[in-house]
């Protein structure tokens, strides 16, 4: 076991440390509240490990430089908040279609436009899935604690490298700005590194988008002697544009298949006190922190309540939610928005049990007492108490 150190650390800083540990060596971005500490931390840490930090002229260029660095062979990331995340959407589409691994952290703020920069919200749930145009598949993960910011950033990097896909780390102000105890390795030298598959064939035989069983093509570093064409246009194995219907279908099927055929490896949920539960809360990110306490309070009142905490937000945990709906008599979805994740929960549950929504959008997280009242209200409505 490697030596570890115990510290009080902020969530945003734990993202920085997780990225450095995972081997991220390029950051391009533009500081924006409540994610600024990530840019600040990367600017400080990257030069210490031989990496590069670039503050770009705007949010779009932030992700543009990340895509460039990733094409050059580096693990690369950026971070932003709502207004910047909106601006990055076009580049996210390019990274999807050109299959460029990258990590984008979105520390959510309230509202559309500049909204409320310093208050917690989870209003970008659907934007992470459908923000860029056209059918596309990304992976979205959401941490609930400072230690999880560290481990999940490493996982986000690993997923991006494994599947050659943009991975979005969906955070909120609660987790981004809170400080708590974390135990991390003193040195990251022994942290396992997940790297994209690189071509083993000679350069003249290399077809940039020819994929084997996994659906993920091998990726050559730009400038390494392998010549290939990068385009946002629909392309065939060569990377050059192809306009036939067959080419579109083949490309889309592979982009979907490389994610959805590996859903069991990609999707993670935490099940808390669900073994004997009659009623379940579904909550993620900072909002889930309230749920742990509310479950304990409900249990103290003799109510058999548990929590399902999705760690992977997209692809949606369809099987896990469907299985939950078969084992409980009611579900309460709690999110810090007017109701986004709940849409997919209802679709997955398909009427197997009642699904209620506890939506909170007043710049504050729900207190455990408030959530307990909502649990009791929903359980009464479902005839469980």
């Amino acid at each position, binding site marked *: 076991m490697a030596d570890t150190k115990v510290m009080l650390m902020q969530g945003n800083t734990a993202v920085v440390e997780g990225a450095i540990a995972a081997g991220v060596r390029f950051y391009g971005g533009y500081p924006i509240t409540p994610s600024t500490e990530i840019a600040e931390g990367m600017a400080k840490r990257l030069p210490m490990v031989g990496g590069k930090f670039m503050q770009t002229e705007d949010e779009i260029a932030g992700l543009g430089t990340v895509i460039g660095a990733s094409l050059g062979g580096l693990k690369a990331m950026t971070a932003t908040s709502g207004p910047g995340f909106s601006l990055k959407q076009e580049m996210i589409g390019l990274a999807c279609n050109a299959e460029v691994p990258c990590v984008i952290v979105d520390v959510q703020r309230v509202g559309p436009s500049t909204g409320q920069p310093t208050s917690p919200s989870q209003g970008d749930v659907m934007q992470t899935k459908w923000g860029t145009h056209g059918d596309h598949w990304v992976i979205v993960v959401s941490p609930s604690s400072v230690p999880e910011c560290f481990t999940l950033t490493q996982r986000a990097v690993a997923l991006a490298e494994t599947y050659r896909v943009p991975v979005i780390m969906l955070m909120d102000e609660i987790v981004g700005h809170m*400080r708590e*105890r974390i135990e991390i390795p003193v040195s990251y030298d022994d942290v396992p590194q997940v790297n994209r598959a690189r071509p083993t064939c000679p350069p003249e035989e290399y077809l940039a988008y020819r994929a084997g069983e996994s659906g993920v093509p091998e990726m050559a570093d730009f400038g390494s002697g392998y010549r290939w064409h990068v385009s946002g246009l629909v392309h065939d194995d060569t990377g050059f544009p192809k306009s036939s219907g067959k080419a579109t279908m083949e490309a889309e099927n592979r982009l979907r298949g490389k994610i959805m055929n590996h859903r069991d490896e990609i999707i993670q949920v935490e099940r808390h006190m669900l073994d004997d539960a009659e009623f379940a809360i579904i909550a993620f990110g*900072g909002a889930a922190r309230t749920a742990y306490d509310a479950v304990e309070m409900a249990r103290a009142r003799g109510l058999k309540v548990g929590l399902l905490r999705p760690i992977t937000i997209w692809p949606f945990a369809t099987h896990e939610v469907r299985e939950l709906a078969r084992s409980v008599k009611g579900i309460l979805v709690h999110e810090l928005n007017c109701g986004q994740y709940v849409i997919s929960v209802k679709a997955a549950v398909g009427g197997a049990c009642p699904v209620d929504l506890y939506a909170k959008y007043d710049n504050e997280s729900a207190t455990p007492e408030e959530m307990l009242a909502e649990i009791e209200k929903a359980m009464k409505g479902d005839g469980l108490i």
Partner: protein
Amino acid sequence: MRHTFRFSGTGGQGLITAGIILAEAALLDGNLAVQSQSYGPEARGGSSKAEVIISDEPIHFSRVTCPGTLLVMSQEAADKFAHDCTEESLVITDSLFVSEVNANGAKRIDLDITRTATRVCGKPLFANIVALGAVAGLTNCVSEKSLERAVLERVPKGTEDANRKALAAGFSLASEAQGKA
């Protein structure tokens, strides 16, 4: 064991730093701690609050409701952040800035925090460290040794002596107040 704190005042008084130091001291004692904060979009000024929860059990919900201890360093903060105090709360106010607090019958201790910082360290800048000493002295939430270590690890080089004095002055304010009570 569970202690909850809300440090409130004006942006620039160092209350978020004070919250971080208190949480770090709790970790040095081997306990768990969570620190959170809230502030407006302004770069400086505006009311500011830092919250800390110290416990020997896992802490999930990170905000403080019904603070065990409320530190108030401005009148605006007194008006804004005392609403959820109870009779069990302890409200510590800085006599220089705070006149009235409506804290639902909480016990109030009025201390010369900023005046003491100016007197002992020559600058009101050290008021947050004086306040930390007073809070720790009145609540016994962290050990004096861990708090001093946490302060010294966090403050700029060259200011260690002044901070040590500020902390000691805060503990003295606490014991004087306890002597009176």
